[in-house]
Structure formats: structure tokens, C-alpha cells
């Protein structure tokens, strides 16, 4: 799984493109994962159920990967639990303040040609790169 994988990654991207396309065309909803999770709290009725079905599909998809090809999850315990907790918390704070993540801003927002999403994507990729540069001592 490691190393440059242009074919697999393009293929994966095309499948993601099909997923975000079906959701907007059939359901009228944007496949932004942080928003689907965050706005499920307090949602009810049909606005809650599509979120739970989508998230259920994501997790069941993960279970299928575990059965079929667990290598996609990478090496176990590559990052410490304290770092995962801190970083996970920051992901939750940042995506709530900024109204989106890699899928909502990166995939759907850029596909909509939204200037707001293009700027957000540039910013989170930049700070992500800076963070890895600092934690791996590249600077």
C-alpha cells in the first residue's frame, strides 16, 4: 500500500466521485463527512435517518475491508493514543468551525467550484503539511 500508487488512487478517487455524485443527484445532499456526523446531533426524522444510513455504510464498508483486505488500514499502532486523541479533537473543532473537511470542502466544494471551499482546502493541506514537517523534524 505504501509508495506512489497513481492507478489505485485515481480509481479510488473515481469511486468517491460516483458516491458524491449519487448523493447530490438523488438525495440532494452533500457528502461532507464532518457535517454528516456533526449535524446528526439534534437532527430528527428523515434528516437524521439518511445520515445514519450513510455513516452505517461507511463503517460496514470498513468491516468489509477488514475481511477482504485488512492491509488497507496500514500498520497497527503507528501513532500514539495521546496524539490520536489530541489530533482527533482538533479535527472535530476545526471541521465544525470551518464547516467542512477533506470530503465536504475538498471533494464536493471544489466540484461545486466554491471559492470558500477552495480556500479552506488550501489552508488545511498547508497546515497539515506544516504539522508533518514539524513532527518529523523536517524544518
Amino acid at each position, binding site marked *: *500500500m*505504501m509508495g*506512489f*500508487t*497513481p492507478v489505485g*488512487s*485515481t480509481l479510488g*478517487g*473515481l469511486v*468517491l*466521485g*460516483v*458516491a*458524491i455524485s449519487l*448523493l447530490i443527484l*438523488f*438525495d*440532494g445532499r452533500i*457528502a461532507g463527512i464532518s457535517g454528516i*456526523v456533526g449535524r446528526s446531533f439534534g437532527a430528527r426524522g*428523515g434528516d437524521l435517518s*439518511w445520515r445514519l444510513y*450513510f455513516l452505517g*455504510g*461507511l463503517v460496514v*464498508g*470498513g468491516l468489509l475491508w477488514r475481511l477482504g483486505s485488512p492491509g*488497507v488500514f*496500514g500498520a497497527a499502532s*503507528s*501513532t500514539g*493514543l495521546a496524539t*490520536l486523541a489530541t*489530533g*482527533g*479533537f482538533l*479535527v472535530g*473543532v*476545526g*471541521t*465544525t*468551525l470551518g464547516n467542512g*473537511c477533506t*470530503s465536504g470542502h*475538498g*471533494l*464536493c466544494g471544489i466540484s461545486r467550484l*466554491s*471559492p*470558500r471551499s477552495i*480556500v*479552506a482546502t488550501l*489552508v*488545511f*493541506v498547508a497546515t*497539515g*503539511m*506544516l*504539522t508533518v514537517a514539524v513532527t*518529523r523534524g523536517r524544518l
Partner: protein
Amino acid sequence: MSNGNKKDAVAAICGLLFALGLGLGGMTNPLKVQAFLDVLGKWDPSLMFVMGGGIVVGLWAFRAAKRRAHPFLGGDFGWPRRSRIDGQLLAGAAIFGVGWGLTGYCPGPALVALGAGRIGPAVAVSSMVLGMLATQAVTAGARRRTDKRRDHPHLAL
């Protein structure tokens, strides 16, 4: 099958496809994601191909969707209402990027990785939800205070 049930079925299929695409693309492996972010080290540009593949299809679909009054299964499009590029957007995106770099997980891959049955993704996802709820509570509180000041200017708040 009602349209609401059909929408749920489409959502479930999209979630499954999304998990398939993330795994195929390499995004469920946090080390590969961090290798994409490691531009000053041994850079792996693969994730640009994930984004590229998704956007090529998405450009077509969102253009088609914008021309329609309603989605295929009825109801309304949930288009984002915000369009301003403000400090909150920039700060949020910046904070998210730091968390993404630290963990190698953005929200989608973290949820898919729950299926791996390991402790790491479970910690990342529960902390992420905690961060979301905490931020929602703080921003809702700030909004209430602003409304109160506007409605009751004589009150010292």
C-alpha cells in the same frame, strides 16, 4: 418504497461506495496520508490523484445538480448557505489541518477505519465527536449572548 426510504437506501450505498473509494485510494492508511503531507520528506503525491479522480466526476454531477430544481428523489437540495471567506473558516481549516497531520485521519477514513477493530481509530473518532460537540456548544453559547445583547441592550452581559 417511499421516497424517504429510497433516499436512505441511496445514502447507505453512497456510504459503502465512499468506504470502497477511500480504501482503494489509500486514504484509510494514515501513514500514506501523512506521506502525502510530508512534502519535505519522502513525498507520496498519490492523494492528489484521489482528489483529482473524485473532482473529475464531481464537477459533472454538481453542474448537473445545479441546473435542477429538485433532486431525483424529490425534496430540496441542501446547498451550503455560507459563502463568506472569513476568519472562522480560515481558523477552522487551519486547526483541522493540524489534527489531520498529527493523526493521518480526516473524518471519513477515521470512520471507515473503525471497521478495522483497532483502538487507534476508535480513539480518533471519539475525540473528533467530542471536539465537534464542544465547538457546537461554545458557538451556540456565543450566538445566544450576541442575540441577548441585541434584544436587551440595557442588560450588562
